[in-house]
């Protein structure tokens, strides 16, 4: 089963598809909603102009229901998260916001994911031996 991170599920939403099966963390919903209703996403218009757009909370909640509908939620326990923090401390470059990605990777490993679907191939390569995939419509 594939593990989808936040970046993959934002890409899926933009392209109008949703994963037909797979897993993610509950916190992925928090990140997805936070971005879509807060800072928004920067779109590039055909003329090259950049525009920042976000969604209303009700629209974002409805869109999240659809994008996440086929995914199973798998979460580390508090103790597993603390163990992940200790492990991250032994690895080079896992700090700051990267720790969120490390928790994605640890969750994928802990629950037997076969691969991680993400746009962030560079950082995840430092964090896991699991196969990494760019998000594409199933």
């Amino acid at each position, binding site marked *: 089963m594939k593990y989808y991170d*936040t*970046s993959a599920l*934002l*890409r899926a939403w*933009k392209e*109008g598809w949703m994963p037909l099966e797979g897993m993610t963390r509950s916190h992925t919903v928090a*990140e997805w909603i*936070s*971005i879509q209703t*807060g*800072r*928004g*996403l*920067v*779109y*590039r*218009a*055909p003329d090259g*102009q*950049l*525009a*920042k*757009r*976000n*969604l*209303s909370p009700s*629209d974002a909640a*409805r*869109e999240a229901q659809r994008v996440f509908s086929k995914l199973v939620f798998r979460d580390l326990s508090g103790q597993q998260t603390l163990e992940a923090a200790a492990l991250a401390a032994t690895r080079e470059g896992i700090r*700051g*916001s990267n720790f*969120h990605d490390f928790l994605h990777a640890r969750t994928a490993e802990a629950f037997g994911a076969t691969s991680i679907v993400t*746009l*962030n191939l560079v950082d995840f390569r430092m964090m896991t031996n699991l196969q990494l995939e760019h998000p594409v419509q199933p």
Partner: protein
Amino acid sequence: MYFLSMQATLSQLHRETRRIIRPVIHGGEEVVLTDFGKPVARIVPFMPTVTVSPAQARASGTLDDDHILAAIIEAREGESERLVAP
């Protein structure tokens, strides 16, 4: 238009310019500058966030991978870097 509002002192702006300006430029946020506890100026983004429907958002243009990753990083760091005026 959608603005989040932060506050920073003039001293903070001097010492931590990048950290204070970055959310304005990349996060669509607004920063109110204070001096001796009173608001004295406001920095606003040139590219404000506009709330639209999902269909309008998708039709706004292409979405670069780098922009998605930047939004995630900025959202995560924004939570820990939010400034509070002393």
